[in-house]
């Protein structure tokens, strides 16, 4: 027990985050076919960088939870390897799991245990000697300190979610998996949760979260992976993704409907919508020449009267929906 503890401390000390830091989680050729014959994961390769927040997006049944479950030890892989901080999750499971904390999707708890006991139990289960000061810190960070003697059954859903996070943090993991952390959580609590996650990242914890809420990934993540039908179809820096795929649209609302796009405007990528009352222009806001001035002049010259004008940046959600649609 003491040996493994010093190893953990050493690896922490020598692994300061840097641009060239090796991956903290590295997934190679990972596959999973359940006994029913259902192939949940096709060969998957994925690298999670030390200290980042990685968001895994995907529709229901895409394989998000299966992937996380394999890395955390809940499901046996069918093939391939996973290294957590350099430790194989099957061969060297003790060292690997010691570094990982998991907050599951379902709100499960031992109903009759107190908050304090259940969090202390988790720490023991992960082989760490009792450390009331650490447990106290975790509970205070998650605004659970006042509830420490409450039985779990008396807590609200949001509070139970916090308890699950506290349990996952009780053994000081370097890698934290949050499976749909804010599902069914109200807006205020969601904001709180995001703050908690940011604080953890500042403390050096690598965070991998799965989510349905695109805005969550947009708000939090450094990098985004999209998984669909058991395949990782894209892994990209969030900013780059937004820039590359994030097209802007300008919509002109017209006084009079147009039957067709006038020949004078044929050079512009325009679409006519809303029974001819709307002209939509797609452009790349990162380019030197967006073509807006030229288009507006041409519209003016063509004698088209504009009632209103708006521009819109496509969100991660649009990107995501398009990606998944393209694949189908």
């Amino acid at each position: 027990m003491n040996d493994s503890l010093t190893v953990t401390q050493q690896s922490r000390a020598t692994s300061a985050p840097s641009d060239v830091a090796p991956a903290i989680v590295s997934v190679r050729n990972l596959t999973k076919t359940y006994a029913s014959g259902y192939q949940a994961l096709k060969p998957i390769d994925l690298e999670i960088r030390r200290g980042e927040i990685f968001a895994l997006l995907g529709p229901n049944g895409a394989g998000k939870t299966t992937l996380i479950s394999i890395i955390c030890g809940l499901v046996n892989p069918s093939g391939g390897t996973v290294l957590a901080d350099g430790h194989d999750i099957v061969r060297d499971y003790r060292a690997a799991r010691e570094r990982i904390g998991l907050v599951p999707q379902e709100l499960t708890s031992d109903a009759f245990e107190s908050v304090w006991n259940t969090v202390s139990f988790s720490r023991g289960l992960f082989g760490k000697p009792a450390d009331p000061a650490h447990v106290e810190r975790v509970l205070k960070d998650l605004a659970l300190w006042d509830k420490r003697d409450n039985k779990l059954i008396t807590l609200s859903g949001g509070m139970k979610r916090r308890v699950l996070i506290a349990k996952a943090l009780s053994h000081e993991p370097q890698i934290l998996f949050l499976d749909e952390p804010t599902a069914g959580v109200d807006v205020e609590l969601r904001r709180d949760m995001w703050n908690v996650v940011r604080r953890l990242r500042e403390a050096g914890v690598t965070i991998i979260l799965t989510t349905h809420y695109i805005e969550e990934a947009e708000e939090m993540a450094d990098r985004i992976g999209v998984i669909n039908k058991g395949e990782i179809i894209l892994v990209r820096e969030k900013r780059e993704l937004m820039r590359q795929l994030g097209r802007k649209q300008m919509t002109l609302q017209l006084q009079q409907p147009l039957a067709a796009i006038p020949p004078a405007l044929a050079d512009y990528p325009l679409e006519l919508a809303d029974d001819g009352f709307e002209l939509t222009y797609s452009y790349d806001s990162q380019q030197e020449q967006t073509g807006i001035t030229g288009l507006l002049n041409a519209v003016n010259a063509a004698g088209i009267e504009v009632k209103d004008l708006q521009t819109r940046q496509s969100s991660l959600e649009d990107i995501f929906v398009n990606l998944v649609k393209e694949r189908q």
Partner: protein
Amino acid sequence: MNLTAVRAIYRFEMARARRTLLQSIVSPVLSTSLYFVVFGGAIGSRISEIQGVSYGAFIVPGLIMLMLLTQSVSNASFAIFFPKFSGTIYELLSAPISHFEIVLGYVGAAATKSVILGLLILATASLFVPLQIQHPIWMLLFLVLTAMTFSLLGFIIGIWADNFEKLQLVPLLVITPLTFLGGTFYSIDMLPSIWQTLTLANPVVYLVSGFRWSFFGINDVSLAASLGMILLFLGLCLAIVAWIFRTGYRIRP
């Protein structure tokens, strides 16, 4: 060896027993005491001594065994079934502990509870009937081995069961009949000869016989057969548990 984790599971389980003291200790002790009163007192007074032991005293080892088997099975099966049912088992599976350590924690706690119960019932029984224990070391050995074996069996049932009905099925339909027909309340030579032979296929006969021998020095089957049977059972349960964990059966798909 992650002893901290084993201790955490063990303590967690023992705390659960303390929380449910009425159900886990008081109720089995009370119901077994009722057997003493009814069988030992009311019926026993009409039955002559069996191999020199009064009927009231004769049934004590059998009753302790009856309680030991049912409580070990139900305790251990519930302990692992409930996390599976409620979903909290995720934590156990994601923790840096080996299968052996999980079993050690759960089965250790369940067996401890059963042994404590057995001793409590023994103490209660001594209030009703004059008792002698000729071989106390053997008595404890049988107590501990049986508690361990049937806690393991309970663990297996708890993993196998995927609903509450199945959880109750084996204790009700297998353990209880085998115990009642296993010489708890009688010596098997009180049976017609055909039943004497058939009853030798009942493993509980060997446990009760060995346990009773440690009290009174009388037995239906030889001590070696009793010890052999309990060790065979223990080995069988260990092999099944090992298989469960190797294949991930019902817990790690």
